[in-house]
């Protein structure tokens, strides 16, 4: 049964392997150069006494096309695995009637299904995992500049969690194919279901894998994030999660030492000159940093903020600080493990459903 499943899967496996090998060749050819550019820039900064955080490193802008391609591949390949390996796996046998040929050989349905799911499932996880590890290796110089490993786009394309994504996408495709009994609709269900699950886990479940740490950030040094809005009802100030190196800031709250937010009376006093509709959003330093395409760039806002706003920021910062909840960067591998295990568990659940369905519903 294993040999036969392999024979059925061989062409697809060869295509997948060829893709991996081609990408590996490109990454191996360009990776050392990327490391070289990075090392040179770091050495130069060090010799001129520039702090690492302020070092302008050209590695983050090198091979922009390849950067985008590599990240997109890690995002998309699990989905392709689900649609093109998973969905047809059983649906095509049901569509073409070959299951009647297979199930009347001397192999029980359960074994037939277990071998098919096991073999192609392992291959799916291997493709997702190897691809992601290759990209992670290639990106390491860029990552040490960006320091954004917990960014939702970076987390899913680094480490080994993509192995779990690919396994899950495959199991979802196979299950959809078994239940719907048609390849094309099963592919569509896989597409929608996989994206929905990824989004749900990223924003709904991942933040809760571990209780977040809390830290206090001064607004004076300009580290904290601040939102100021001025309306006819008065001035309002709220915290926003700041950008922390490699960590995942979840919430930011403006508080004083007693744990209270600024009162309306205080804000009237501290921010007298704010006109209706005036507002500000960003780090209290006045320098906004944005992450685009996996690359962090400093976007200078006009260096001199309008005086009333600057006065307001200074006023608030004199009495208040920001309390930030966050997942520290050191938890990255723990989170990778948890999320991978979550997707593996979902896949096993789907495989169990398949076994049950084949035994009880397809007869």
């Amino acid at each position: 049964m294993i040999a036969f499943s392999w024979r059925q899967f061989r062409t697809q496996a060869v295509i997948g392997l060829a893709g991996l090998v081609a990408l590996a060749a490109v990454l191996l050819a360009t990776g050392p150069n990327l490391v070289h550019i990075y090392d040179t820039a770091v050495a130069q900064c060090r010799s001129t006494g520039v702090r690492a955080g302020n070092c302008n490193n050209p590695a983050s802008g090198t091979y922009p096309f390849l950067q985008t391609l590599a990240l997109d591949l890690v995002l998309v390949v699990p989905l392709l695995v689900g649609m093109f390996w998973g969905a047809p796996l059983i649906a095509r046998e049901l569509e073409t009637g070959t299951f009647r040929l297979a199930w009347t050989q001397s192999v029980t349905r359960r074994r037939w299904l277990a071998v098919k799911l096991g073999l192609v499932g392992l291959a799916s996880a291997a493709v997702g995992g190897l691809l992601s590890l290759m990209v992670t290796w290639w990106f390491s110089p860029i990552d040490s500049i960006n320091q954004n490993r917990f960014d939702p786009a970076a987390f899913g394309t680094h480490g080994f969690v993509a192995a779990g994504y690919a396994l899950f996408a495959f199991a979802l495709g196979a299950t959809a194919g078994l239940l719907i009994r048609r390849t094309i609709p099963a592919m569509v269900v896989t597409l929608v279901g996989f994206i929905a699950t990824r989004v749900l886990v990223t924003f709904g479940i991942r933040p809760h894998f571990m209780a977040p740490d809390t830290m206090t950030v001064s607004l004076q040094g300009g580290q904290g994030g601040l939102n100021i809005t001025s309306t006819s009802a008065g001035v309002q100030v709220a915290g926003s999660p700041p950008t922390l190196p490699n960590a995942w800031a979840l919430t930011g709250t403006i508080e004083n030492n007693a744990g209270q937010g600024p009162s309306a009376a205080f804000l009237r006093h501290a921010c007298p000159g704010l006109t209706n509709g005036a507002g500000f959003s960003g780090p209290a330093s006045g320098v906004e940093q944005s992450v685009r395409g996996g690359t962090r760039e400093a976007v200078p806002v006009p260096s001199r903020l309008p005086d009333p706003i600057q006065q307001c920021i200074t006023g608030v910062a004199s009495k208040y600080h920001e309390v930030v909840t966050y997942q520290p960067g050191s938890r990255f591998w723990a989170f990778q493990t948890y999320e991978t295990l979550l997707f593996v568990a979902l896949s096993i659940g789907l495989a169990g459903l398949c076994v049950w369905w084949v035994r009880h519903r397809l007869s």
Partner: protein
Amino acid sequence: MSWVIDAQGLGKRYGKRWALNDCDLQIPSGHVVGLVGPNGAGKSTFLQLAVGLLAPSAGTIAVLGRGPAADVEQLARVGYVAQDTPTYARLSVEDHLRFGSQLNPIWDDAFARRRIKDLDLPVRQKAGSLSGGQRAQLALTVALAKRPELLILDEPVASLDPLARREFLQVLMEYVADEGVNVVLSSHLVADLERVCDYLVVLVDSRLQLAGEVDDLLGSHHRLVGPRRDPDSLPPGQEVIEERHTERQSTLVARCDGPVLDPAWTVEDLSLEDLVLAYMGHGAEARRARQNLEVVS
């Protein structure tokens, strides 16, 4: 007595529709059984129940004394060729032979390869590009090389042209003659079965109408032609299957337990096709009667 197929009150329902209903059938071993009936009569359903592709909604079925597809051993004892002879379109003939050898503990590879060679099947060709007749032969080869005790063929020749049809059945009969295997094959055409079957099962409208050895059936059924009379006036032991009347003359197809003694009748033999057609009509009448009863009740 061990039965090749032993069905008791067997039924299969899809939603509200019974594809096979209340079927009691015991087929003794050592026969080539023809399962005949119009399209949609439940032949395919019955055969799929026998190989375990379907599970019964009612009643039981035992094949060679055991539950269908109960385990690997039982699967190995039954060879099956499904309707439209499905094969893996993108795999070659050679791949199918490997498939058979890998998935069956008993596999006569020399036999399979000899057959493929005798049939002139191109070993490297993909099954998807074979002709319908070649594909049917390939599927039959895979089923035969399992060396099954029972071979079940679901409309094996339905999609074949007359020449391929004859060839297929000829090859099958040669094998049966050599190996003495039990065979059940279905068709909606009696002509296909006439030459090869010595046991007949007639299904009409999801119900079993007739089952028995062909010689017995032909011996006990006659066409009676005589002056017009009411078929209810026949003596006990004679059952009318089909009746046709003109003003002066009655033509009956009847099952008679003993010889027909009434000199008014001219007794004629029936062909298998006439017999089956009579039962198909009989089944249709019975259905109308049932529907009337249901309306009344």
